[in-house]
């Protein structure tokens, strides 16, 4: 299973765009990249998933370069409620979702 590296923490202000980059140099051909969000006292929640190029949903965008060795989660115009821990994971369904979580990035959004 590919190991991921993310910044430990980030600060932002309300209304700004936040970009969190994750490194996964050993990503395998069959691996997808998935991001989760976790608020205190709650379980992680799926945000977005992609394989290559760009994926966008109502919450975020995910940018994946051609070599797939990194990915960037983009949160447009963050609010105080986006303060959470964000986890980047790589894996494939063949692994039976044996998902290993890295340290994650603690995002603090200030007023």
């Amino acid at each position, binding site marked *: 299973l590919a190991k991921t590296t993310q910044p430990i923490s980030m600060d932002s202000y309300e209304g700004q765009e936040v970009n969190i980059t994750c490194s996964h140099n050993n990503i395998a051909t069959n691996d997808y990249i998935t991001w989760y969000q976790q608020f205190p006292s709650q379980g992680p929640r799926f945000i977005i998933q992609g394989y290559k190029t760009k994926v966008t949903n109502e919450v975020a965008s995910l940018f994946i370069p051609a070599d797939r060795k990194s990915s960037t989660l983009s949160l447009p115009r963050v609010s105080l409620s986006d303060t959470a821990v964000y986890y980047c994971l790589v894996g494939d369904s063949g692994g039976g979702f044996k998902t290993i979580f*890295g340290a994650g990035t603690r995002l603090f959004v200030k007023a």
Partner: protein
Amino acid sequence: SAVISQKPSRDICQRGTSLTIQCQVDSQVTMMFWYRQQPGQSLTLIATANQGSEATYESGFVIDKFPISRPNLTFSTLTVSNMSPEDSSIYLCSVAGGTGGLGTVGELFFGEGSRLTVL
């Protein structure tokens, strides 16, 4: 999506006792996962529980300490045995599900967690 209910949501336990955490899913799922999250830390996978077979434990976790049951496709239990203060953590139940979109491999759904404090 899947809705997961865990019981208890929190408990305070005495050293040396055991506690069983229940996980109920609103749909039938093949694989269920148990994670531990110690204060301020990331999630650590304890074991994978498939219905009809023995749970598969990750390195550092053993069946005697964390026995798991999986009697059917919607339910599982995790027991934390002979507890010590080091077992104080949040224990999370998770299942794998499909996002429903093409070109995806699905996602994990988590319960709210069971916060255990061992005195």
